[in-house]
């Protein structure tokens, strides 16, 4: 990948995504943390576009920003004000060490390995992704739909209050 635009996009997105991910860590209010998370999701969608996966980038924005982030905001809204801080537990220091160690190891492996890469982008369209999902990956596709249904039913059952259950039994 060469060219001014691609480079500009990559470095902007890298700073944006990692910076807002750090913002999720640093923000003092849980609500602000979710807002930083939304920016990080958008940055990741930008990376998807750079990696020529436009369909998945749009799916990322629709699902993560349009659904999951809204769900998180709702969850923050439904917790009481006292619990809306974004504080750390006593395990924060070991967690920092672990995260740094992990990042160091993984980045070392990335730099050390001699990757067999191609320079030309494989031309992948949304139609090909659809074909692959409905031919090679048809079984995982069906399992994923069952999983979504199970998650839907499970979430509804978990969130129901005892009043509503009593109402149903009547």
């Amino acid at each position, binding site marked *: 990948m060469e060219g*001014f635009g691609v480079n500009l996009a990559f470095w902007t997105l890298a700073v944006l995504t990692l910076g807002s991910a750090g913002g999720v860590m640093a923000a003092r*209010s849980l*609500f602000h943390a979710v807002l930083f998370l939304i920016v990080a999701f958008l940055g990741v969608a930008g990376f998807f576009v750079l990696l020529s996966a*436009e369909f998945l980038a*749009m*799916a990322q924005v*629709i699902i993560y920003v*349009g659904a999951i982030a809204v769900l998180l905001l709702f969850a923050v*809204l439904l917790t009481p004000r006292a619990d809306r801080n974004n504080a750390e537990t006593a395990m924060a220091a070991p967690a920092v060490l672990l995260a740094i160690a992990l990042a160091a190891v993984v980045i070392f492996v990335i730099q050390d390995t001699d990757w067999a890469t191609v320079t030309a982008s494989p031309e992948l369209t949304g139609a090909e992704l659809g074909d692959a999902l409905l031919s090679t990956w048809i079984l995982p596709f069906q399992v994923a739909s069952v999983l979504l249904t199970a998650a839907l039913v499970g979430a509804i059952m978990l969130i129901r209050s005892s009043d509503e259950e009593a109402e149903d039994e009547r």
Partner: protein
Amino acid sequence: MPFFAATENWYDFRDLSNLSRVILEGVADLTGEPVAYVVAILIGFVASFLIFVLPSQLIVGVYGERKLIGRMQSRYGPNRVGPFGLLQPVADAIKLIQKEALTPIAADKAVMYIAPIVFVAPAVLLWAVIPFGPNMIIADIPVALLYYLAVASLPALAAFVAGWSHNNKYSLFGAMRIVAMTISYEVPLVLALLGVVLLTGTLSLNEMVFWQKETTIWVILLQPLAFAVFFIAVSAELNRTPVDIAEAESEIVAGYLTEYSGMKWGLFYGMDIGYALAASALAATIFLGGWSLFGLDKWIPPWMILVGKTHLFYFLFIWTRGTLPRLRIDQLLTYAWKYLLPISAANLLIVATERVILVENDWVDKDLIYWLLAAINIVLAVVIVVGWARVLGYKPDSVPTRPRLVSEVGGYVPYDAAGGR
């Protein structure tokens, strides 16, 4: 007639993309690629926004809407500032800029400041994928429709955040309502558009226009049910008046806009019109053939055709706004889940069946087949809507409600529409 087809010359105003290409090539020669990038962005947004959108937004959106609604409600509408009140939008803008932008003490100031900006940005970004002509499209990406849906889901988030930041219970009610509405109506909206995608076999808006140009039939005839669902769902997403419960002033002051004043409020107000215009442009592109007009697009500039069709749809929005009363939140959510969702799912089944039939049979006279399908689909649409309403227990009144109520209390109903009298 090749003579009349749009040429590659920069002065051919039927295809403005030539002009921008000439400018960009000149800039790239003079200064190099990086500057050309910036200029390309500027041209794309300045041209589409300032030339097409802003005049529409100010003249049609603010002035025309108020004037039309005024006429529908037997008023004059704005008629004081300038000739015919034409300068009313300018006066409004000056007033809004002068006003003080208040911020409550307990508000989340940073979020309250950012929310209008986040609300405005997607309204501009939406226009990137609307094709104004065969070449006049800022980003001709293969997943244009998904891009539109993705970007159009951002303003609801901004409105939610805005409502939360005020620390005001009415704002919070508005915010909760807007999210509930968006989540509910997003599902039938996407299902309805999926019907069109199945029919045309593409996610690219420009290719949809080409498909309608080739088959010489508009999708609105082939997919009347999808259009009805789309129109209702999109006006719910846009918070237009029959369904604007997120800022219902008779219930929750002004919803998520309660604490905004001055130009911050003005941005929300102006961009509501911007979103309605963008949605009209999308509807015109998908359902009414976009920039094509039965071959006339060789003579008339295609972008003029698209702007005309956009305003046709925008008039539909104004019309519903001027005519229908506001609904309650529970009515609207019930409507989305119990009526629109099954209807759009049924539409999807029908269009999938038709698509399979079309693909598996190789008919010679495709045009006739499409017109036949259109007739079948219109009949099916009526049958499904009426049938589903009957299934859910709705019985149309033989006597309209208002005359019946009037006659029940012993009043006099002057016209014969009462029937029962």
